């Protein structure tokens, strides 16, 4: 993708977010001139940038939205919710288009049709269709004279294209590119350039009329030329060919122009032979260049206007004197201006314009000023000192780069840990305690730097929760309208920071929970009235930092969860026993909604009943190493609390070994480690169990589950690690416990990607690779092995 388009897409994403947020805020504080202005400006900027590309539908649609916003801004009409809907729909459509552009580098073919109805709706409140077209890149206008080289295109194709362009009232850009024969020595690459032409429709290579004899053939000379037809925008093409402006021609033709050419109705432009195309680049004083002459005249005409409109500002007068002098140079008619006063300048310009009147059509109407000069001392030019930096100080970095940096930090940690082993070796193998101490000193210095490095890289990855929250105003607004409920969304603690992985992973569970609240939690307005609540319900999204964790809470003031109903439902679904139906506490009953296969909604609505329930929420939160709990009071409301680690980059694991191999187990899951004498182990129904403080806990043989040969030594106590997996306590029989370590977990990749029983690998300080167990899968394996 060309960098300009990439820049546009990045900028567009920011602007679209601004527009969305602004519009939603405007609904809460209608008519806020500051907000209207902000939204307008974002739309305006967007339109301006889009004009550089050939996205006519995009520019047209944005233009309509901008005009509507302009009218609102001018106070001509208030923004009602219908308009807001249309505007939001417009920018949604645009967002979709841009996603398409990102991969295809063009708008979807349906863009015109999709935009049409929206444009009508946007324009309706401001008096229907307006003809004020957005300016497209000027230059040859559509319907221009078709150049003779159009003959290089297949006539049949031209006829087809003409017909198609007419029906869609669009245009096609035709390029002729005749590379200079010596282009090789100027490091130009015609083939590469042609390949880069976007949206290429037709390409023909024009060979020389006669190829030179083999003996005379110069393999470094470019003898071919190209003609091509493309749907790309004038701006893009000009940008692409900016180095070879003198070697290429560009015309913008509509269907009619091509048709006229085909029927021979119009005169064909005669042009000089291509090979001898004159170079008109940096050569100074090219007073014969008509384009330069036209520009010089434009400058002079503008100067005349400026003299009339602002005749007193000294700086301005000096600048005009300069501009006039330079323009005069371009005419090959150098003037010297001693005193930049308005009378002298006006006289000079008038003379210059008069002298060259026939040369070019006057682009600006001239106005002769009748204002007296106001003499003032010329302002001194400021001394040249190093300028201050301008522009944003925020650096946008590719996510992959940060990820890579994080990986390197991880490896640095591992390499650093290697030093402790080295120190051990120095002492034990070489008997040098002094050397060992020096290595340890080095280690502690390195350790401090590595820790700081890790902290700052993790800090780069931190994003505010507002990234995850930003979609909810819109979501709540749209859904509450569809449900006919009045809901106010309150966001709190959006500035709380968390690792980007956590924020990203939080998105889906949050959406689910908010939808759930909207759909099931909040009553209809009538129900609320009947129970004496305000008709407008409230959903609060709160984020707070809590040590190494971040807590996100979704609270509503809806009907709450009825524990009795949950118990009954769970019993009917066979999730709890008859005994539990009687004895389960209300708090535990509410927790049942997280059980797989549970859904309280009698009817599956199209909002939240998408086949994923609260069990999916709990599963994904637990996968992040977090917990989710729900508190609810019948008739008062429900709040769901997610507790997540601030960062997923570093995982604490407990190292255990079995059959001589070491494995890691996430520390969050570890409840305790116990050593049990062999004769205290029991067996119930083919299942080894251990009784701990009166609780019977099943014990699984990790070696067997992983299919590793190992027979426990009957003379030693059994080492059992008690883990909490999915709310259940399980004992894991291992050979030996080791220490806890902080590791950076890498996912299983390549050939090992299928190995679900491991959640990832980590490098240990001594260079060994640690496999970290995925406990849920391991339990499944153990159950199958029996």
């Amino acid at each position: 993708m060309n960098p300009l388009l990439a820049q546009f897409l990045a900028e567009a994403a920011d602007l679209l977010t601004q527009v969305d947020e602004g519009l939603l805020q405007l609904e809460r504080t209608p008519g806020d001139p500051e907000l209207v202005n902000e939204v307008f400006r974002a739309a305006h900027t967007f339109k301006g940038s889009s004009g550089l590309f050939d996205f006519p539908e995009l520019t047209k649609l944005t233009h309509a939205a901008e005009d509507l916003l302009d009218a609102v801004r001018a106070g001509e009409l208030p923004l009602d919710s219908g308009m807001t809907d249309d505007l939001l729909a417009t920018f949604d459509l645009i967002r979709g288009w841009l996603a398409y552009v990102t991969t295809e580098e063009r708008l979807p073919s349906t863009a015109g049709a999709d935009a049409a109805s929206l444009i009508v709706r946007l324009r309706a409140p401001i008096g229907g269709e307006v003809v004020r077209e957005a300016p497209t890149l000027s230059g040859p206008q559509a319907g221009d004279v078709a150049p003779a080289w159009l003959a290089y295109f297949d006539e049949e194709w031209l006829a087809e294209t003409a017909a198609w362009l007419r029906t869609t009232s669009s245009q096609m850009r035709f390029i002729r590119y005749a590379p200079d024969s010596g282009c090789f020595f100027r490091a130009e690459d015609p083939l590469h350039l042609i390949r880069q032409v976007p949206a290429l429709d037709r390409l023909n290579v024009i060979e020389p009329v006669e190829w030179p004899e083999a003996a005379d053939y110069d393999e470094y000379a470019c003898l071919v030329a190209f003609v091509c037809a493309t749907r790309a925008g004038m701006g893009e093409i000009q940008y692409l060919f900016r180095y070879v402006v003198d070697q290429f021609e560009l015309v913008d033709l509509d269907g009619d122009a091509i048709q006229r050419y085909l029927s021979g109705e119009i005169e064909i432009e005669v042009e000089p032979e291509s090979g001898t195309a004159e170079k008109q680049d940096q050569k100074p004083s090219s007073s014969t260049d008509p384009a330069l002459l036209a520009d010089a005249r434009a400058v002079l005409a503008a100067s005349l206007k400026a003299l009339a409109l602002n005749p007193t500002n000294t700086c301005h007068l000096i600048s005009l004197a300069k501009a006039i002098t330079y323009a005069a140079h371009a005419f090959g008619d150098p003037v010297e201006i001693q005193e930049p006063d308005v009378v002298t300048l006006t006289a000079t310009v008038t003379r210059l314009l008069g002298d060259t009147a026939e040369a070019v059509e006057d682009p600006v109407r001239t106005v002769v000023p009748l204002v007296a000069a106001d003499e003032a001392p010329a302002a001194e030019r400021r001394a040249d000192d190093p300028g201050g930096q301008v522009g944003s100080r925020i650096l946008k970095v590719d996510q992959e780069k940060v990820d890579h940096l994080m990986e390197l930090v991880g490896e640095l940690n591992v390499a650093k840990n290697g030093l402790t082993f080295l120190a051990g070796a120095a002492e034990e193998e070489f008997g040098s305690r002094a050397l060992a101490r020096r290595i340890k000193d080095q280690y502690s210095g390195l350790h401090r730097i590595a820790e700081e490095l890790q902290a700052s890289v993790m800090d780069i990855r931190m994003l505010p929760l507002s990234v995850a929250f930003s979609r909810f105003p819109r979501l709540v607004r749209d859904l509450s309208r569809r449900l006919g409920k009045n809901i106010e969304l309150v966001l709190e603690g959006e500035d709380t920071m968390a690792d980007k992985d956590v924020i990203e992973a939080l998105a889906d569970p949050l959406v689910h929970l908010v939808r759930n609240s909207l759909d099931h939690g909040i009553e209809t307005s009538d129900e609320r009235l009947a129970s004496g609540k305000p008709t407008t319900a409230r959903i609060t999204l709160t984020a707070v930092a809590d040590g190494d964790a971040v807590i996100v809470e979704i609270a509503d003031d809806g009907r709450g969860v009825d524990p009795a109903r949950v118990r009954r439902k769970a019993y009917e679904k066979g999730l709890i026993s008859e005994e539990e139906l009687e004895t389960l506490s209300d708090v535990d009953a509410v927790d049942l909604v997280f059980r797989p296969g549970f859904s309280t909604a009698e009817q599956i609505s199209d909002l939240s009943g998408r086949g994923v329930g609260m069990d999916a929420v709990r599963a994904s939160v637990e996968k992040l190493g977090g917990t989710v709990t729900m508190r609810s009071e019948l008739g008062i409301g429900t709040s769901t609390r997610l507790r997540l680690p601030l960062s997923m980059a570093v995982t604490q694991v407990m190292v255990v070994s079995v059959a001589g191999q070491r494995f890691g187990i996430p520390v969050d899951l570890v409840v305790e480690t116990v050593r049990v004498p062999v004769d205290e182990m029991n067996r119930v129904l083919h299942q080894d169990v251990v009784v701990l403080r009166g609780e019977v806990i099943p014990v699984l043989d990790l070696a067997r589950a992983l299919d590793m040969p190992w027979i426990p030594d009957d003379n030693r106590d059994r080492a059992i690690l008690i883990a909490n997996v999915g709310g259940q306590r399980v004992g894991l029989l291992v050979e030996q416990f080791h220490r806890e370590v902080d590791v950076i977990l890498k996912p299983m990749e390549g050939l090992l990607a299928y190995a679900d029983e491991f959640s990832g690998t980590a490098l240990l300080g001594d260079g060994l690779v640690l496999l970290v167990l995925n406990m849920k899968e391991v339990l499944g394996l153990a159950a199958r092995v029996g």
Partner: protein
Amino acid sequence: MTETQPKVLVVDDAATVRMYHSTLLTEAGFEIHEAANGLEAVEAALGTAFDLFVVDVNMPKMNGYTCVETLRSETVGTPAPVIMISTEDRPGDADRAYAAGANLYLVKPVVPARLVRISRMLTGRGVAA
């Protein structure tokens, strides 16, 4: 190249447009500085003597007209040429630009070759021998 590169300040709030103008002028041999609105432009002009300003009209914080007025005022007092480039082409827009102190008012998007040509002319490059 022995002559020093002319310094140009490109002022536009749209990053894409800024990049577009900057790339064109950089390749044409100018030293480019950028500003995202009028206020930044004025700040930059206070610290550096530019040879040319390319200024957008509709910008947040300080629009192009005010920006150019300030550049010409005693606060900054720059006599360097100013090209204003706008998306709008309504009657009166050009007059406002000239009254503010601009030397040329162009409507976006500008043909690259033209922008380069005019920039060269207004900085005395490629014209004077």
